[in-house]
């Protein structure tokens, strides 16, 4: 069977078009992050229903309301552990947050689905968030340096950090 030259050309053009599209990268399973943050065990799951007042405040932090309208979180001592999702450019970034006493202890990118901008997973970037608190105006107490080429992912993580700090503030204690 002969394969016409034009078909072969179209095939290679399409193959090259599709090349370079990245898939999902799981850096750490969310359950493993929670276990690591909670001393090796998975504590009972709690749920915070987001009321209209919560969503109005979240809208100012994220620029939009948070979906889903219930947020799951885990408590270990005084620490809140929460897994949050936010769209970077077109795909959601899943990140784990540990907050204690209104201060961010840890942020880690767990699942990254975008084709570019995965530099936000590096500890040199995420360490900038350590110790950050949420000001009255909804801004972080620390200035976060941008990463060239990963602006939208940086923005998404900064917004999620604000949300995690807000959730620690409003969760039942």
């Amino acid at each position, binding site marked *: 069977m002969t394969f016409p030259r034009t078909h072969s050309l179209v095939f290679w*053009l399409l193959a*090259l078009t599709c090349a370079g599209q990245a898939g999902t990268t799981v850096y750490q399973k969310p359950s493993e992050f929670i276990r690591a943050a909670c001393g090796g065990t998975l504590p009972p*799951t709690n749920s915070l229903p987001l009321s209209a007042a919560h969503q109005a405040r979240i809208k100012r932090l994220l620029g939009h309301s948070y979906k889903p309208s219930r947020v799951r979180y885990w408590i270990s001592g005084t620490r809140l552990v929460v897994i949050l999702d936010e769209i970077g450019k077109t795909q959601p970034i899943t990140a784990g947050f540990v907050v204690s006493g209104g201060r961010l202890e840890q942020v880690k990118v767990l699942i990254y689905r975008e084709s570019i901008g995965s530099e936000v997973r590096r500890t040199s970037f995420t360490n900038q968030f350590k110790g950050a608190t949420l000001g009255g105006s909804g801004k972080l107490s620390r200035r976060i340096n941008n990463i060239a080429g990963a602006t939208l992912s940086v923005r998404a993580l900064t917004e999620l950090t604000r949300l995690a700090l807000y959730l620690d503030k409003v969760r039942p204690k």
Partner: protein
Amino acid sequence: MSEERSRKRRRFWGSRRWHRYLGAVFALPLLWLCITGLLLQHQDDLGLDERRVKSEWLLKQYDQIPEGEPQFAKAGRFTVAEWGGVLFLGGKVLEESGTLVGVVAKPAELVVATSEEVFVYDAQGTYLDRLGEESLPGVPIEKVGLDDAGRVVLKIDGERHALSDDVLVHEAVSENGAVSWSVIKTGGAERGALQEALVEGAGFTWSRVITDLHSGSLLGKVGRLMVDMTGVAVIVVTLFGIRLVFKRT
């Protein structure tokens, strides 16, 4: 002999020869750039940023239409479909995605199970809750159903696990209890409506296609390389043209 060789060399490197051949080879790509450039320049007047692309081939190039056939499952008055990982509820595209495993309807909630996650919606279709790997007894989920007590039951790794009413806690349950499992059907009957929903949701207009045609991105690296080469060729042809003008004078 050497004079013959130098004449041949002069002819090979001559401006006229290169001007002619480069012009002939890159005439079509240059025409392509000119036409797409003009279209982009007048995209507002032509309404290119409003006209939606309906060509199935083009939409597939941009991954706007998934491969294969859509699958769907019904629960109560709800129909949930999945096509290439995109989920649809009542014909509308959901932001959540995954491989559909099944759907069950509780009195006030709809539970959609994908192989890796479970999504909970209220009776109006508002997204309420998400159970990821951290909230499930394991993944992948094989089946989802409702038991006699109205609890959501998941089949994972051959074992059954029931979710509490608030879907915060799960427990292993016996294999013997009756469970009404959700059934997934494959069919192309809704394909047209789903494709329309995808096209509407994507807001995919001709403006983007023309932009990618102009930059060559529509054909990937090869297209971009061709546009680069055309640009360089135009510069070279112009320089040779200028040289020829001065030679003649």
